[in-house]
């Protein structure tokens, strides 16, 4: 048992867990035809059936029950602040399963030439009053009752006025901001705290203008919208939900990583010596000291950025995103590509950090400009 916990602790290190999740993710939600074929071959679509759902939930429950037997895990999971996060896990999995089950069912029906499950829904008429309002009202009553009971059971964790000289360790953002807080580890605050949240909002607003694929409108389907679903779920599940979970359960004192069954030792120290790309290039590769000229020093970083945002879209338009380019045209495609690359920047930066201890690609602390 202890060995198993130890193995889980090791595997929970994001350096291992994150790449593994990314790798698995694209097999479960294949964006391209080739990956889709592998998915079919591995029969991974069976997860989105009734039996699959039962197995999925049973596995989740067992994992939780197993975890609760451990004192450290129990302490974190049962903290009043963290209870919603536990709920979040179950709810996310449930709704994901529900929607994909319907999508895969429809895909099967379309293949057989049948109508989609939702095809008849459009024919039906539902009156706002009483049908919609009534059920909404009933749902509201249940919801209110649920919140009341919850508040009776778990008291609000109200505390004394804060002492500015004593900060809690770890100091965590509210759960819904934990993803952003996690980004702070990898990016300069103005990027992680200002630019990215803005781009996320703009990106969400831009979806209707970028996604002009008429397929999948009014019915659930996976096959028809492989790329869109895969990209969306990647950002939603991996870069948002997963980071919240990491922030809640795996970040301990001094913002160190701790396995789910590891004691949160306040004295734990990890060797973290991060270097900038310029140092990597000049000192390690070229064996010379850093140039005093800032632009010369950061030249390599700028080159990388120019390549990433300037040349990558062109390459992608010729290769991976060829169909998208053809469908959207140059203007919409460029916006789409830049947004996509910015979003992909996060996991790329995380991997660079873990693999090469890279702190910033471009580091000009003189002007508070770090990327």
């Amino acid at each position, binding site marked *: 048992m202890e060995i198993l916990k130890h193995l889980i602790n090791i595997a929970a290190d994001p350096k291992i867990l994150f790449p593994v999740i990314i790798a698995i993710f694209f097999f479960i939600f294949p964006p391209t035809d080739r990956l889709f074929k592998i998915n079919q071959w591995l029969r991974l679509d069976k997860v989105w059936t009734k039996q699959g759902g039962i197995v999925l939930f049973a596995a989740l429950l067992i994992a939780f029950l197993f975890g609760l037997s451990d004192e450290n895990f129990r302490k974190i999971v049962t903290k009043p602040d963290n209870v919603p996060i536990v709920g979040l896990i179950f709810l996310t999995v449930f709704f994901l399963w529900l929607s994909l089950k319907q999508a895969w069912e429809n895909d099967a029906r379309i293949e057989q030439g049948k109508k989609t499950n939702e095809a008849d829904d459009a024919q039906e008429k539902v009156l706002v009053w009483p049908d919609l309002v009534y059920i909404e009202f*009933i749902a509201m009553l249940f919801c*209110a009752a649920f919140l009341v009971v919850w508040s009776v059971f778990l008291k609000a964790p109200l505390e004394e006025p804060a002492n500015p000289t004593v900060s809690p360790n770890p100091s965590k953002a509210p759960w819904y901001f934990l993803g952003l807080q996690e980004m702070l580890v990898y990016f300069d605050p103005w990027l992680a705290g200002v630019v990215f949240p803005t781009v996320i909002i703009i990106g969400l607003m831009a979806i209707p203008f970028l996604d002009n694929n008429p397929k999948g409108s009014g019915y659930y389907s996976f096959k028809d919208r492989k790329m869109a679903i895969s990209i969306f779920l990647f950002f939603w599940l991996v870069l948002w939900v997963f980071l919240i979970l990491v922030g809640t359960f795996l970040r301990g004192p001094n913002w160190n990583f701790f396995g789910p069954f590891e004691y949160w030792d306040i004295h734990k120290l990890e060797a973290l010596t991060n270097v900038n790309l310029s140092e990597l290039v000049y000192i390690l590769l070229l064996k010379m000291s850093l140039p005093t000229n800032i632009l010369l020093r950061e030249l390599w970083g700028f080159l990388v950025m120019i390549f990433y945002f300037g040349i990558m879209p062109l390459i992608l338009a010729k290769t991976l995103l060829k169909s998208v380019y053809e469908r959207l045209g140059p203007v919409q495609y460029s916006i789409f590509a830049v947004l996509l690359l910015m979003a992909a920047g996060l996991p790329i930066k995380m991997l660079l950090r873990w693999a090469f201890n890279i702190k910033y690609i471009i580091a000009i602390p003189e002007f508070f400009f770090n990327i």
Partner: protein
Amino acid sequence: MSDERHYNINKLNRLFAIASIVLFLSLVWLFVDDYSRSWKKYQAAFRELEIEKTRVKHDGEANKLQALPEYQALQQEIADAQKTIAERCSNSADVKKSLERLQAENDLLKHNYKIKIAELDAARYRYEDAIHKKENLAHREPQFQKLQGSVQDLKLKVEESDQKIAAQHSRQAECKNKAKELKRQENNLSKQAAVLERKLRRIDPDQMTFANYVADLVRDLPILDLASPKSKIEQIVLNDITDDVNFMRVPKVDRCTTCHLGATNPDYKDAPQPFRTHPNLELFLSTNSAHPLEEFGCTTCHGGRGRGTDFNNTAHTPASEEQKKAWEKKYRWEAYHHWETPMYPLPYVEAGCFKCHSGETTIKGAEKLNLGLNLIEKAGCYSCHTIDKYKDWPKPGPDLTHLATKVSKEWAYHWIEDPKSFRHNTWMPSFYNQSNNSDPESLRRGQQEIQAMVHYLFAASEEFKLPSMPTWGDPKKGEETVSSIGCFACHNLQHELAAAPRTNDSLRREHGPNLTGLGAKTSKVWIYNWLKDPNRYHPETRMPNLRLSDEEAADAAAFLAEDKDVELMNKPVPPLDEAVVDQIVKSFMVKANTAQQTADQMAKMNLDDKLFYAGEKLIGHYGCFSCHNIKGFENYKPIGTDLTEEGSKSAERLDFGFIHIDHTKQAWFKQKLQEPRIFDEGKVKAPEDKLRMPNFDFTEEEAGAITTALLGFVKDKPAPDKMKPQTPENIYIEEGQKIIRQFNCQGCHIMEGEGGAIQSSVTQWLMAFDNRSEGDAQALTTSFSPPNLIGEGKKVQTEWLFNFLHEPVTIRPWLKVRMPTYRFNAAHLNALVKYFNALDKQEFPYTETVDIKLSPEEFVAGEKLFSAEYFDCGKCHIVGDKMPAGSEESWAPNFTLARTRLKPEWISEWLKDPQALLPGTKMPTFFDPASFDKSGPEDVLQGDENKQIEVLRNYFLTLSAKHPAVDARPQSPKSTGPLKPAEAEAMPQTETQTTKPSLSVTQPE
């Protein structure tokens, strides 16, 4: 309609019903949960207890009343009176009926009378009208006359009826008055019981009226409880004592009495918590005490979160591990992390006294805190750790600037290595053989470290002349001198560790070092020179000069030097190891230099240089200079953490290392004090980074006492008007207490009811050298001990006191123990004089206001009273150079000192009733305070006692004038008789004298 609907309406209705019920139930649950507060349970339980207590008390009162003969007699009388009333003027039917009839008649008459008056007024108008108009007069006039007559008639009848009724009433009242008076008497007797009964009727459901009973049931129901509930939060709001909530200060609100309901009521002494009475109500909580509840609240002293109303959010702190376990079980207790001043656990509760009483040296009633502060002073914590209270205290350790003349290098080595092996109860702490430096490598390094420090100390030691002794000294005589002269007020001579724990009293005898093994430490000559003049060797020493003659000093030195701890002397000092010394030098040198510079510098140094360099660095590193004067360290700063506000530090800032103890301040302090290096356990550190606080070998109790003091060293101070008022008197007293503590005056004298630590050694001396039996010796101890200084300010003149403290003279030549000469500076002397005056609420400076002139007749009368036939004062008191006839233990001070020493007002009071001024004094009471007017001799001064006292007093004051040979100077040794050759021989102080006011004494006629 229904076919147009998408959902089944019945199903939805059912769902709606279920949802409504679920929501309703959850809201009920919410209400119940919100309503049931833990404090309500306690209030209900207290109400039960209160009813029970009141019942018991009431029954007790009632029984007492029943047993009272007066009450029984009264009851009988009441019964009799009632009987009489029943017989004579009972409210029988006839009496009632006749009264009713009378009343009815009266009512009717009054009714008619009112009507007739109205008719008369009307008739008068008509009559006047007729007169005016001169018509109908004949008819109107008789009409008016007639009515006037009948009104007159009726008036008479009404008065008659009224009288009849009044008579009837007064007859009845007369009967009742007696009963009323008896009832009043009964009420007087049963007042207590009645109060209790009224209370019971208010709180006891069994005794309530029905209406009250119903009200009692509903007033606590939810919502209705907004009006006047039985259960409500009690709170004390303190506007001038605030809680720091970081961004602002808010008034303290203490709700503790919501549950601690019996705290101020002495009836609940044995009640279970939380209802128990607060201990010591005279000092705390009650309205007349120094700390009334309404003004100080609870958390001001106890800490904790006053606004909380349940067990956990009030930040209760368990007193012990067992209590913690019990609380966890009973209250699901857990530390309330977010409140920075949790309640002081019971063992440390006295810590709360310090924040207001920090100026006092001894805080009355806080024994543990006092012990802690006393230990801090004795151990000298303040010299490495800055503590505001001890800002200007002297260094606790001896001067090392002339060390080479005092001890040998070998001895110094052994002493630093393990001071306790030489002197078991020394205050010198152990730096070596501790938990973090006992591994072989550290031991090797430690040996060389000590070598280096010893080398430095001896190299830096300055020359010091030790004149040789006039004689070799007689150890036997020396022993007597040492045991009698007063050394044991501050020192002891114990070879073994005492079994009894240290107390505030025993610490007075640890003021100076234990004198064991002195011969192994230093030479006879050094001891001789030290005794002759301690200040020469150590200018700031607190050791006073006892004015020993050369011979006495030589004897004492011979005796003290006899004691040699041979075993220690035989232990070899390990050889020097240059390689290790190099390491030490390097470890310090590389801190400020590069490795190359270090190597270059070290190449230039020989072994002596290295030892000197390492020794200097190590003395700075370990902070030896904080306690000792060491040459070269005059400007160094203390090395320890500032402890002035240590009690306000949060536990998170303390390094608990790998030690599993409670993460509380108190646990950490106590652990640190008992084992200072323990937090290094399991850590990998370079030698110079290791913890270096030395080990004082405090016992658990001592560590607990010091912890109490540390917890009390807090940041926040309450409003000035809540502190002890800073009047000049209080400031003088605090200043004086500080000096008294520093110079250990209470080692000899009893002051403010404490002290006199020397007395046990006086008993010992009486037994060992004066051949007294144990019982005798104990009985005589006070006679041969230094005087009790109660009322000293009232007793002696300010100027005399000032001079005496500066340069003592002999007052009691029969005492072996002598008042030493201290090197008090002017500030000390003034502070002490002011202290004594303030303590006895005396005017300062003192001016004599009493007329002390004597007429010739009065002089004769005084002489007469003084003579053997009357009071025989010369039997005990020394007069000039004439010693009293009686045995020494009954001797009393010289009269010739009185003029300059005593305040005349005091002499009068003293003569009148000595026991009132100094309980237990040997001075006989000549004037019986019980029958003062008849107590004096009748044949002197017409038997006027007050006059006798006045004359006798004024007579005493002439005595110094009558014996011009004697003045306030010490007597010559020849005059003091064979038993006290040493005593009066005050060594003249030729040292630098501080400026002092000159003594001006006007001689009486």
